[in-house]
């Protein structure tokens, strides 16, 4: 893995905007093609293999949580447990997830799993692919995200209810809309009939006890870019349990176990021999160098890094009331003041590609940059 400085394309902003990528720059640059990461094929195969193994372990961990009734560790409300277990036992459709990995000195370690609402899908699947077309189209890239998404939607079509597949995200956020519309694009190409409805606009029909869209048509299949923990605490959360259509929500509710940091100590307890896992615990005091993570934090909020029991770095935010886990510190590698984290995608049941986000410090926050990669 090398970081190589290069010249951005002339008028690169126009190039990415032509792809519908409107959030390439906010207050700080987000899409950054002034550098790229080069991997050897052996490294990519290593990341791919680790991703497949981690996915298998995660499925085992979900079953373990259910078998041993560990929901209390995850802060999940009691009344939703039967529903979560139903989505698991009935194998409700799921499509994707992103492992955040630290790759350093030949070792690869899982930092967390964005299993419910992973973002940067469009950057990883589309923007960096087109960058490589311009940069050197003869080169390869660990990125079959697009074809795997289309292929898996095609496969899922037989497992969804007949008819419309709705797509939903919050209003007023171009990033979320882009990711959602991209996913919808892939579903359309997979042969599905789709419709967009913003999460804020979803209706509940108290006569028919069903969720409805803006035209009061029933929602039976819906892809959501909106986290389960927010859904459950929303006013309509309990309506999910009453829904007579028993709509398929994609990702399904069992994914909230994997997107919760509480899965990290569970994984470690189950698979301490796994080379891709870091020691992680629910209790403080078992580690000397560690990261304290809120169960539900997003974008690196409320993270505390401790080294030899002294504060190394921390971020602020609104998370933490839900509880914490403690994970052994495995600091991100540094490339001239840049600290990359690998986002390795699982689509369907398979590794599908990666995207790299760089931060200026050891904690990857919402000011991180997306940097493309290629296989050298």
């Amino acid at each position: 893995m090398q970081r190589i400085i290069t010249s951005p394309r002339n008028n690169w902003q126009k190039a990415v905007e032509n792809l519908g990528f409107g959030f390439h720059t906010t207050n700080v640059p987000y899409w950054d093609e002034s550098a790229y990461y080069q991997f050897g094929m052996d490294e990519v195969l290593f990341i791919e293999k680790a991703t497949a193994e981690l996915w298998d372990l995660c499925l085992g961990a979900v079953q373990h949580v259910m078998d041993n009734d560990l929901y209390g560790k995850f802060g999940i409300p009691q009344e939703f447990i039967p529903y979560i277990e139903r989505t698991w036992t009935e194998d409700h459709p799921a499509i994707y997830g992103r492992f955040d990995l630290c790759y350093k000195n030949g070792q690869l370690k899982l930092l967390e799993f964005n299993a419910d609402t992973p973002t940067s899908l469009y950057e990883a699947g589309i923007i960096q692919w087109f960058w490589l077309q311009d940069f050197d189209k003869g080169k390869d890239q660990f990125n079959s995200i697009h074809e795997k998404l289309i292929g898996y939607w095609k496969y899922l079509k037989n497992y969804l209810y007949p008819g419309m597949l709705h797509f939903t995200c919050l209003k007023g956020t171009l990033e979320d809309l882009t990711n959602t519309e991209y996913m919808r694009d892939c579903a359309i190409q997979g042969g599905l009939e789709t419709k967009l409805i913003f999460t804020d606009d979803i209706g509940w029909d108290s006569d028919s006890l069903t969720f409805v869209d803006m035209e009061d048509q029933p929602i039976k299949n819906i892809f959501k870019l909106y986290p389960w923990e927010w859904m459950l605490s929303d006013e309509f959360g309990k309506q999910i349990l009453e829904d007579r259509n028993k709509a398929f929500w994609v990702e399904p509710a069992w994914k909230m176990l994997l997107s919760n940091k509480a899965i990290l100590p569970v994984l470690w307890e189950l698979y301490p021999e796994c080379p891709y896992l870091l020691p992680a615990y629910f209790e403080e005091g078992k580690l000397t160098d560690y990261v304290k993570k809120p169960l539900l934090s997003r974008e690196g909020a409320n993270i505390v890094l401790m080294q030899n029991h002294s504060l190394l770095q921390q971020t602020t935010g609104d998370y933490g009331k839900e509880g914490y886990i403690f994970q052994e510190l495995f600091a991100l590698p540094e490339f001239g003041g840049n600290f990359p984290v690998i986002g390795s995608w699982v689509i369907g049941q398979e590794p599908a590609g990666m995207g790299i986000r760089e931060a200026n410090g050891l904690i990857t926050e919402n000011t991180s940059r997306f940097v493309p990669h290629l296989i050298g």
Partner: protein
Amino acid sequence: MKRTKKTRHIQLMLITAALASCHQPNKEWQNGNRTYVRSDSTAPYSRAYYPHPGSLLLWYYAFRPYGNYYNGYYRRAGYYSDAIRPSSNIGSNGFKSSVVRGGFGRGGFSVSS
């Protein structure tokens, strides 16, 4: 043919057209903060006020409607911006007395993860 790790060909059907225009400034929409919008044929007129756009990118499509094609006809479903009051940002179906909206979406501003 040499086996590669990347997608061989990419075609986008929806997203480019849907999103490429979202960040294009439109002078007409920039003029003034107050806008009177009628969201659909059954809703009353309502006043939308949008003084502090959370994102400049979104400002440009604040009042752009979104909808779907059905049997060849475009049907408006709502507006991109939450500046339109929920009471007026409703669908075109008149039989909506038993439908309540706004029960999801209070969780945050973006799901970025």
